[in-house]
């Protein structure tokens, strides 16, 4: 069995205590659900010296404050799947299997490390590979280039949070700060989050706007798997024609940085009909160039993106029509 070694453990009482523990240590790592970190330690792609247990220390709030929904980073993915707003609930429900959803947290999913078939492997496997940019090597085996790491951001909640316009609240010994999720994500497989050392994600804040939302995930099996493509859409539609007041689509698991599909503003005021749906799906296809960091043929993943975007938008339209 793969065994872990080389770290000690400290249990945080609350977020403030957690950031203080982190500040006083060398090479610490946050331990929330553990479902991403522990495999990484077992595979020796991460070798922290101190794990700071967040457990009950992370807030699990689910509350409205001034027209916003404030979600504690400690909320379990299974909680979100049950009572999160769409498309977040559907995205959370598609993560891994029941056990991992019961363990994994919202904060942990947002902070998920990027994944790559050349990176998430054992020490022996990576030694045979000769290492990679993300782990003791000097080349990216996906692109063949020595410059940037294109490991994929596979957090299924991220596209959902992007289309919902999420902001993140982070805490460090210097105090809290807030920034939008879109600003927080970087096109860098090595450091995919604009997080400062010792900062702890404590809350995810969603503006409450109603509307309709849906998520879709391409994965090999009906359970357990990480996404090969992960996407969410959210819209406010109006009237029997499903006129677009607001519409956002975000696509993840293609590269280090999930993004909201640009250019959809052009359709505001128009009905979300088959013609627009096809046009938006076409735009998604144009904009999406999945990296080969995950399994699956990249051209096929790109094609499926187009198909899935169209299906997602049709679902939004029918949800709207059902409500109406």
């Amino acid at each position, binding site marked *: 069995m793969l065994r872990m070694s080389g*770290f000690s453990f400290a249990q945080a009482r609350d977020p403030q205590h957690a950031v203080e523990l982190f500040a006083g240590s060398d090479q610490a790592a946050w331990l929330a659900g553990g479902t991403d970190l522990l495999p990484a330690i077992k595979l020796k792609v991460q070798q922290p010296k101190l794990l700071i247990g967040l457990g009950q220390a992370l807030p699990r709030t689910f509350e409205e404050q001034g027209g916003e929904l404030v979600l504690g980073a400690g909320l379990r993915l299974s909680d979100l799947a049950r009572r999160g707003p769409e498309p977040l609930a559907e995205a959370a429900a598609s993560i891994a299997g029941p056990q991992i959803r019961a*363990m994994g947290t919202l904060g942990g999913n947002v902070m998920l490390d990027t994944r790559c078939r050349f990176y998430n492997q054992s020490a022996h496997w990576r030694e045979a590979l000769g290492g990679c940019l993300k782990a003791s090597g000097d080349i990216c085996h996906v692109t063949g280039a020595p410059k940037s790491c294109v490991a994929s951001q596979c957090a299924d909640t991220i596209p959902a949070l992007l289309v919902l316009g999420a902001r993140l609240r982070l805490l460090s010994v210097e105090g809290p700060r807030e920034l939008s999720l879109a600003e927080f994500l970087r096109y860098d497989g090595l450091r995919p989050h604009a997080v400062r050392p010792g900062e702890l994600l404590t809350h995810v804040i969603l503006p409450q706007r109603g509307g309709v939302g849906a998520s879709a995930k391409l994965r090999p099996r009906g359970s357990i798997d990480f996404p090969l493509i992960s996407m969410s859409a959210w819209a406010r539609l109006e009237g029997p024609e499903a006129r677009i007041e607001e519409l956002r689509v975000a696509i993840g698991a293609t590269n280090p940085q999930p993004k909201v599909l640009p250019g959809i503003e052009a359709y505001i005021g128009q009905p979300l009909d088959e013609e627009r749906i096809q046009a938006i799906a076409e735009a998604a296809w144009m904009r999406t160039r999945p990296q080969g960091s995950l399994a699956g043929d990249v051209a096929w993943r790109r094609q499926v993106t187009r198909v899935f975007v169209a299906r997602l938008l049709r679902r939004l339209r029918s949800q709207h029509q059902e409500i109406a």
Partner: protein
Amino acid sequence: MTTSPESTALLVLNLRVNGEDHAVLAPPTWTLLEVLRYKLGLIGTKQGCDKGDCGACTVTMDGQPVLSCLTLAATAQGAEIGTIEGLDRRLAHAFDATGAMQCGFCQPGMILSAHALLEKTASPSREEITAALGGNLCRCTGYTKIVEAVQRVARSEDISKGLVQGPPAEGFSILGARARKPDGIGKAVGELPYTDDIALPRMLHGRILRSPYAHARILSIDLSQALALPGVYAAVVGADLPKAYCVIPWTPDETALCTDKVRYVGDGVAAVAAVDEETADAALALIKVEYEVLAPVLDLDTAEKAAGVPVHERDWKGRPRLDNLCKEVALSFGEVDEGFAAAAAVVEGEWFYEGSSHAPIEPHCAIGTWDALGRLTLYSSTQVPHYLQRALSEVLEVPLDRVRVVRPAIGGAFGGKSEPFDLELCAALLSKRAGRPVKILYTREEVFLAHRGRHPMEMKLRVGASADGKITAVENDLRLDGGAYHSFGMVTTWYSGQLLTGPVHLPAYRFRSRRFYTNKPCCGPKRGHGTVQPRFALECALDELSEKLGIDPIDLRRRNALVSGDETINGQSIPSLGLLQCLERVETLSGWKERRGKLPFGKGLGVACSMYISGTAYPIHPTELPQSGVMLSADRSGIVRVACGAADIGQGSDAMLMTVVSEVLGIDPDAVRVESQDTDRAPVDLGSYSSRVTLMCGIAAQEAAMGMRQAMISALAGAWQVDEARIGVGPGSWFDLQDPGRHVGVAEVLRLAEIAAGRPLVSAGGFRTRKLGGKYQGGTIGASPAYSTTAHVAEVSVDPETGIVTVDKLWAAHDCGRALLPTLVEGQIEGSTAMGLGEALFEAHTVDSRGLLAQPSLLEACLGTSVETPPIVASIVETIDPVGPFGAKEAGEGPLHSTIPAIANAIHDAVGVRIRRTPFSPERVLAALKEQGRC
């Protein structure tokens, strides 16, 4: 490395498990799984994948199902932890009684997940059940019976705790009854130990250093720093065990650890034993190996070209080898060219079957220990205790009588544990060197590297038929990608040609099959050894033929069906064959006639059939000794012991032995004790491979039991002073046929028989090898005492926009001769079918251009989960074979084969494309659709 004092400090953990408080001293790095298993002895929580991919380690925390392997033990303090040991046994009994468990290894975790579901949802739907179990992989059952077991508990069904659950077949006292396995409930409640559940006093832990190169010469190995590490007790290299071995005795081409060259990424180079696995890991990192890297051979074309250094530079007799050809077989039967000349339609093409691995949820594990008398005991999760015993004796140069192999419960095997492995030989040697027991447990990646899985196979196949759909000739040219070593290679090569000649009659047949060495993990026997691949090609070609000729594909097979008593073109006699019944069964069950051809675009039905052996007449080690031996002995408590070396790998061979003996002696099955785990105590059975156990051990058991029965009849007739013909047998008691009021319990009959004999009552039986097969070289290979047959219909949906194939339902009819234990037979049919589905759609075992395994984890290997595995309808056909015990034939491997071509043919029916390469990935299907302009 555990170097900083901070990190090595042990923690006192206060854990509340199953309502009891425990204070445990453990390293901060230990998971809850490690603490439960190795500190608290709660062995019902299993470990299968290292890192959260399989669900075997599922426990509940505050009522939620969680993965204990991804839960740091320190973070579990303060929670209510629930393990299988603390759970009420309703689910365990339901799983056992329903046949929802075979090897039992995934069951505790599965049951915890089911329990968590039922706590929340009293009457879950099928979808809710499969979703809730979606994080728990089962490799044996195909999930159908698992869903049923959960539904039974949800319905609060009263589940009998007796071993026999229903009425027997007509004319029998237990045969054919719904029955439980004698080892079922013990596994379901986490009580019966698997190898890694065993901890011997002073036990050390071993690890094997593996090659980072696919092909390289070893120039030097320096163990000095590793040996100097505190906590390391022994370290060995290839030169310490230089004797070459192979499961096939005349092709020894591998050593316990590499001596001169490494031949795949992962080949073993050195092994260490240390106080714990962490220290052994640290020691491996200190071993210095110098290599001279050679160009690797990674595909069939390169292997055949043989331009560079061959994978093996000498053959097994030490002669220089210039190419990579491991084995070549070519045979021809009947008038092949004339057959093609007479054909009204010919289908010709190239098919490719991708390799796949067995992936039992239990990783291989072995413990070596030497007693004070210098005798070796090796505990191992092996399907072949006898062959392992022989290999240990030969390689370690210890007389056979001083080697004992103990086979604890096995968590699945499927052919993946059917030969000696490096961990067994290394555990034995390290234990000798260290003077203490040594356990080696493979990581999941090592399981995939050890492999011995299905060969990637290229098949250039041509099939001709007359206008009325009669096959006129078949020709096949095959290349097998064998990987680094021989394993069962020559058998695979023969089987790939020799086993294709039924159940549809080939009147003229020619094949050439060549197995090549490559620098990849070694291929070997996987469920349906050697024939799943050519069967895929042939059954797809038959579908194409039926399309060309305008004949219904089921009818086409009917027109060519062999029947009981026939002989194949290559000289195999088929005592019984129920192909026509199987075809009719799936035709009816699937609504084939009404629905086929009438489904909308995107939906389709496909059919295929197959045939498989029930063991082979010609064993691996040619011997005049019986292939299987059974010893019965009775004792004064009224039990009958059945000793037989057959390895119960989850398929239920212990249950089969119990049932046969119980039937013959009329004794309650609960009074039959099967002893099959220890080579010191049980007569030899050659092992659980080639689907030989039910037939061969069954016959041996029947013979032994008949001997004991006769002694009992004589004794009772003597005591009653009546004619022996008046003695009636069982069930439960013996009686006077002319005076049914006069009866006596079986224990009393056993007592009378012991008195009459003046010694303990014993009896033996054996299965003797008869000469079978054609009178030509290779004619005996694949010649079996009996053949099973299967037919499948698959119903699929193909998404033409994405290429994604969903199998909606599978019907499988299997002729097993007679179902001694129908629940277990159905389980084999369902499990085989589900495994075939995985190979068809998801699974592969491939390497990249460096020789690196692309699927080294259970995440990447993509085993089917409960969510996308459809309901499987298993239907038993009984032809009552004249050879098999009570007419029984195999059921464990045959029902895999035709799943795959049935799905391929259904895809064609759905969207009109022929996929000639496994797996039928959405990329491949979409590309084929585009090529044909269908999307």
